[in-house]
């Protein structure tokens, strides 16, 4: 099984740092690539803008998506991913602070594979991220390309 990278779409550097630490502590060793806003994430995923020419076939094994993002919001990114015939197979986990019922429902309706609310307690966060990474990257059987 190839070790695919994780794409984290997150604008808050604190959260990026904490997520990275949580993954490390949870023994998820996959490479973590970070996009600071929604527009950049889309450029990356579709090989446009500053990522023009990137091999889009090199898709992430898991996308961790925050909802509240500058420029292009999390839901728009999600929509672009889930309407793309190729990218839609990549599992997307919404990783956010919001626990609004509407957001949860909307997220699942738009094809998100999981919805995780970032807990404040870091130990719980580590545990959550570890479990999630374990599940989506190791236990879950991804389609072969």
């Amino acid at each position, binding site marked *: 099984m190839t070790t695919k990278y994780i794409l984290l779409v997150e604008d*808050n550097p*604190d*959260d990026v740092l*904490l997520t990275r*630490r949580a993954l490390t502590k949870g023994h998820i060793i996959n490479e973590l690539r970070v996009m600071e806003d929604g527009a950049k994430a889309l450029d990356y995923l579709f090989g446009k803008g500053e990522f023009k020419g990137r091999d889009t076939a090199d898709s992430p094994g898991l996308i961790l998506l925050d*909802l*509240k993002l500058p420029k292009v919001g999390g839901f728009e990114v999600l929509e672009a991913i889930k309407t793309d015939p190729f990218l839609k197979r990549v599992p997307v986990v919404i990783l*956010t*602070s*919001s*626990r*609004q019922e509407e957001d949860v429902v909307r997220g699942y309706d738009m094809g998100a594979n999981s919805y995780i609310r*970032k*807990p*404040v*307690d*870091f*130990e719980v*966060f580590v545990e959550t991220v570890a479990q999630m990474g374990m599940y989506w990257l190791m236990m879950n059987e991804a389609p072969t390309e």
Partner: protein
Amino acid sequence: MTKERVATIRLTLLFLAVMVSLGLSFWLTSLNLRFVNVPLHTMMESVVAILSLLVAFFIYKFDEGDSRFDRYHALALSLIAIGMLSFFHAASPEHSVFVWLYVMGRILGSLLLLSLFLPERQLSTPIFRALPYGVIGVSVSIAVALLFLSMVLPASELNREFNIWEKWANNLSALFFFLGSLVFFRHYRREYQDADFYFGALLLLLSSASFYFQFSHLWDGAWWYWHFINVCAFGLILYYYIGYFDEQKKQWMESKIDEERIKFVATFEQAAVGIAHVAPNGSWLRVNHKLCDIVGYSREELLALTFQDITHPDDLQIDMGYVNEMLMRKRTSYKMRKRYFHKNGSIVWIDLSVTLIWKDESTPDFFIAVIVDVGEEVNAKEALQTLNAELEHKVFERTAALQNTYDEMEAFTYSVSHDLRSPLRATDGFSQALLEDYGEKLDETARDYLSRIRAASQKMARLIDDLLQLSRQTRTDMKPQTIDLGSMARKITAELSTQEPERAINIIIGEGLNAYADPHLMNVVLTNLLDNAWKYTSLHSHAVIEFGSMIENGEIIFYVRDDGAGFDMAYVDQLFKPFHRLHSAQEFLGNGIGLTMVNRIIKRHFGRVWAQGEVEKGATIYFTLGLNSKNQSTQEH
């Protein structure tokens, strides 16, 4: 023909007739006839008796109080005497007595007639008014006396020749009757009253009959002739009264018709609504005062116009449509609200009701239009509509403002849930990172501080979550249905027991705890209440928690009771306020939002919640639910 000429002709004809009859009587005398017929004679005298009394009765009945009454009164007295004695005369079988009775009747009657010549003042005295009864009495007395005195009376006739006393008594009465008739004829020439002529004629004929008496013999032609004259005299009066009553009836009917007409005109003219007769071509035929008032025209001005002239052009087509349908017999009446132009040019709103009167099958005669001024009503309606529109606008504005506030609150909530948590996460995460990565370089105090930072961040995160939950409970849509609170409570307590299996708690949950409420919200209520009970009994080795219901004043009251830490009733008011706690966080965990939430949810169900407790004895929270399936359905409709 003038009344004077009629009077002259009548009187002339009457005197000529009397003269002719005088000649006729002399001729009859010369024929020397004899015809004995007692029944015929009885009948004739009876007719005279009845008619004379009847005429007297009519006079009292119809002419009393009349200016002519005095002379009629004198005549009536005379007729009563004649009538009364004529009865006795007709009924008497004996020749001798019946002639005397006749003579007495004539002489008494004619004497009473002379009261005509008394001054009027005397005729109207009370004594005079009582005279009719006196005359009746006197007549009867005379008759009775004559019947008894028949022996001593001189023979009334000899060889059918009347005696001299009787002849002269009749001549005297003939004179008095003649004088009486002159009085009536004089009045007739002055006043042209038919009654005076006929009464005069009556007296003249009675006079002539009395005059012939002396030339006649019992049962001969002349004798029958003057009896015939007597009957004729009363026949004439009868003829007069028949005409008189006929006339009276006609007048009475005319006066009735007049009254009705006056009433109808008054109804038309003084009605509080406008009424008009309108010709089939639309011109006003007759209008009442109120209609003139409504449209501001005078009657003459209005009658020169048509209804089309003063109708608002926007309403005219509809109105004409109705008019044509009526003229084509497609409808019998119509009603509409329309506008007239007032003379001053302003618009007058009216309600119009129209019916059509037909002259015959195919010819329309006129319309009857009833017009009611509804200006005030229309104005009030318009004012109301304006007011409603303003109100609606205000409601719209305020709803928009409210929606705006709500949206802002939503945004705020979102921001709180998302943005406030991020820094807390960083605080907690990096404190933990410090502890993990640099723990050995820090002393005990520093590590304790870091732990406190973490504890504080986590507490704040919980507070934020509770706040969000609190606001959410009051905003979510309610979907009330019939639910079993008992089984809900059992699930919750089972969960609690699983979390803390070591606790020795006796849980009592009643039966039939059904309620009409929102299941999600009631779950929050029961969870909070049972959680509290669980929590506040935690310092006791053994505890009882009870959930049940009771009925008081027809209302179901639910309660959750425990025998735990309880509370001082002095602070009961603070129990349901957010973030107010009666126990320290060291004693019992929590941040004082549970009962606030319970309170809000119960209030959303139109219920009440209250508490009772005692320190170290326990606490009971009571609540009611105001909703029921019935009033819920009325709210929805």
